[in-house]
């Protein structure tokens, strides 16, 4: 059960990183590190961050509030933010 959860979590994480690479038109998602900051390290503007989160919210069927989303700084933050909302909104999975 636990490994199943972890597996799903890691899939979501990979998907987030792939989306970042897609939005940034990077050829290699592996060049993105969890500690990378969206703005400073990846050159993603606030529109890019919102683009990322709205795609995630569509794919994972999550409601993500604008105000909470503004606090996200790194890739790690984005993953934790999504996991938090995922657990809240899909408690049985």
């Amino acid at each position, binding site marked *: 059960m636990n490994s199943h959860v972890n597996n799903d979590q890691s899939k979501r994480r990979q998907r987030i990183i792939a989306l970042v690479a897609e939005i940034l*038109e*990077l050829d290699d998602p592996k060049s993105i590190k969890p500690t990378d900051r969206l703005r400073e390290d990846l*050159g993603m503007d*606030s529109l890019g961050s*919102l683009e990322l989160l709205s795609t995630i919210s569509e794919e994972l069927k999550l409601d993500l509030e*604008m105000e909470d*989303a*503004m606090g996200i700084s790194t890739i790690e933050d984005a993953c934790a933010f999504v996991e938090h909302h995922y657990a809240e909104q899909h408690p049985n999975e």
Partner: protein
Amino acid sequence: MPNNTLMSDPIVQSHQAVREATDRSMLGLVVEQARRFAAREIDPIAFDRAAQLPRRVLKAAAEAGLFGLAIPESYGGLALSLGDICQVVSELATRDGSFATSIGLHNGLGTRGLIAYGSQSLKEKWLPKLASGEAIASFAATETGAGSDLMAIRTTLTPRGEQVRLDGEKSYVTNGGFAGLYTVLARSPEMGGARAHSLVCVPRDTPGVEVGAEEHKMGLRGSSTVTVSFDGVMLPMENVLGTSGQGIAYAQHILTWGRTIMASGCIGAARNALNAVLSYVIERKQFGRSIGHFGASRAHVATMAAKLWAMEAMVERTGIEDINGGSIDGISGATKVFCSDEAFDICDRAIQLHGALGFLSDLGVERLLRDARVTRIFEGANDVILVFAGTALIALSRSDAGRRCHATVEPDLEEVARAWERVEQELQESLDRVRKKYGVKAIRHQLVLQRLARAHIALQAASASLWRARAVDAVARSVARLSVQQLLATAKENLSTLESSEIDESNHLQVTEALYRLGAMPQPVRA
């Protein structure tokens, strides 16, 4: 000595006052000189027909000091502030949009990067030539595959030992046909990270630089617009502006200047249109009366004046924000969108009031409209700026959002000022509703974002109009009042249509899906 003690010293204050007065009268002289220069040297109809600015005019403009407006005095320029440059450019644009665009671009987009970010030695090498007009400046960001989406540019800058190498092609380069120095935006993945961009100054005579033929245009035909290509162009490292990799951030700052100056050009066009109308509508008689005395004409003329008032207020306010050291990222975009949209509308009304004569090119009113059209496209298409502005609005935290408020106003404008506050409150409530309803998915609803941005811009313009009306005469106050009333109506209209946005979006989707599939307007098929 702390600054506040210094400033409270009466002698220093009087020095300060004298300095400000000297600055103002100096600016007055420069503006007056620009006006005389334009009247003497510029023949807008001839330049439009020939589709070029004669070289002798550029030379005369150089002698008149028009290329050194922005450049520090130590390099031979006038060191004018952004707001003051706008006053000169709007004066030139009152005579001719093409010439004003050439001068405005040089003093804004063309030289701003070098002034703000260039190394000491690069500035010493180029700024004196740019101030004297020996070299004219261009700014090259757009490519065929990258217009609104600047991150898609393909021109590349790569380090080569002590030098950098530039490869790629830029389109629609204003002033490009006669420029001596191009500030070029390029990707620089080896300088600052995979997504990094840098700005680099490229002298025209560097081997590998090729300048294309002039484009044939709808308007601003007297300005130069060309493609410039760079094939293995080698440049000293010092030509890279500021910190390599910061190109997009620098370009954004440069654009705040470019957009504000361009908006001041819109003021010139609008002023020209209104002046033409004022002399025509009294003189032209139909049905036994001056056409200007018909109620419908008065509505046009009054609206033109009200809009022009607000345009001037927006540009003036942006200039002051810049002097005060505030960020003009948001307001310069708003000013650009507002002034370009309104200038086009004002020119259109001027043609309407001139009737058939307005349509003929001999009078020059139709040229104003053609020239104004592109201001809604270049330096950021208005559609796109509105979407970004709407996004920025909903992304602002609530405490940030509520802070805009204008200062005290004249007693007879109190009522519209209170009305402003009510509509501003409505906007804040609408923003809250949109945030709640859509969350981060709001950016998928461009119609909503644009309506919010239009309401916000109308409110900013109304606030600027009120602010500009402090201590002015009764006529100016009546123009300001009308301006605020009309802008509040625009803001309210945009807020009221928010409710129906989803229905509108779904209708748009349905219609366009069908049209894109068919590729043409279908003939209705009846059962």
